[in-house]
């Protein structure tokens, strides 16, 4: 007996449609040097897992979640081992003038605690809703909302942007 199979689009359609979004998110999360590696690794993982997907819905969100996890893995691997350093944000490679349109914002985002930085990046660079952000960070939409609003408050203070 043939089991019921989900009708997934050809993988090339995902690549064509989403590779720029994956690249942008990967660079925002991992910096210009590691970003391309993170994107490449994310695509390899997605390609390996693809035939076993049980739903063809939200494929963009699925790809961005994998990208976020690959960036997290890279961070964990790079993080200093001492538990005393855990709370400190991990520095990401600095901006390369032309490629980073907003160096002040880049600096301020990178000084955020890691969870806030990931949440705010997934929300605005990844253009995910709070369900998508929550899925990527293994948390709840309510917690995602909190992380993002805390991050925005910190960024407003640092950048001297007025509350709107």
């Amino acid at each position, binding site marked *: 007996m043939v089991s019921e199979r989900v*009708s*997934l*689009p*050809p*993988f*090339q*359609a995902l*690549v064509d449609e989403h*590779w*720029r979004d*994956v*690249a*942008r998110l*990967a*660079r*925002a999360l991992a910096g210009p040097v590691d*970003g*391309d590696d993170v*994107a*490449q690794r994310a*695509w*390899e993982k997605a*390609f390996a897992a*693809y*035939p076993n997907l049980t739903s063809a819905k939200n494929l963009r969100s699925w790809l961005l979640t994998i990208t976020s996890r690959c960036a997290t893995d890279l961070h964990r691997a790079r993080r200093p081992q001492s538990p005393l350093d855990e709370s400190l944000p991990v520095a990401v490679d600095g901006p390369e003038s032309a*490629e*980073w*349109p*907003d160096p002040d*914002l*880049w600096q301020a*985002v990178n000084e955020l605690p890691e969870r806030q930085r990931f949440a*705010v*990046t997934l*929300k*605005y*660079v990844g*253009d995910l809703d709070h369900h998508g952000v929550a899925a990527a960070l293994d948390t709840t939409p309510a917690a995602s909302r909190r992380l993002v609003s805390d991050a*925005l408050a910190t*960024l*407003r203070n640092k*950048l001297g*942007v007025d509350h*709107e």
Partner: protein
Amino acid sequence: MNDLESRLSRLTSASGRPPVLPAADVSYALHDTQIGTLLLATAAGRVVASSFGDEETMTTRLARAISPRVLRQPAALDDLRRQLDEYLDGRRHEFDLEVDLALATPFQRLVLSDLPSHTSYGRTTTYGRLAGEIDRPKAARAVGTALGANPLCVVLPCHRVIGASGALTGYAGGLDAKRFLLNLESKS
């Protein structure tokens, strides 16, 4: 979206490059020829498509019939492209390829799979004669429909089958393409 939020959405510029992926379950390429653009595809070393159909339709069908890991990987099609070019230049009379009719229905397989042995280079046959040869003497029309759905155009020579009156009747790549192929074969 307020100012800070829109600045955040533009945090990184759109750059980078498309990913490099391992060999797909189905590799395909678009190949421009004298008779039009063919979508060529291979799976597990066998040719599964040589079609005038459009990219989206064909790759979606391949994803459903074989595997969703379908990628544009032209290098996997090098041998097929070379053989097609040789054939279309009149330098090759037969294809040395393994084919897989994964995109065909059982009846289409019955009609198409032995097509190279029911036809020969430079000769035409008719729908009625072919129907008789596959033991479906009353199914000339159904045979015609099955040939029209040939997923392996040129490779499996459905262009060599014409109407009993001698009319070319129809071809997925258009009648000009069919005429081109029959002229090509009659010259060489």
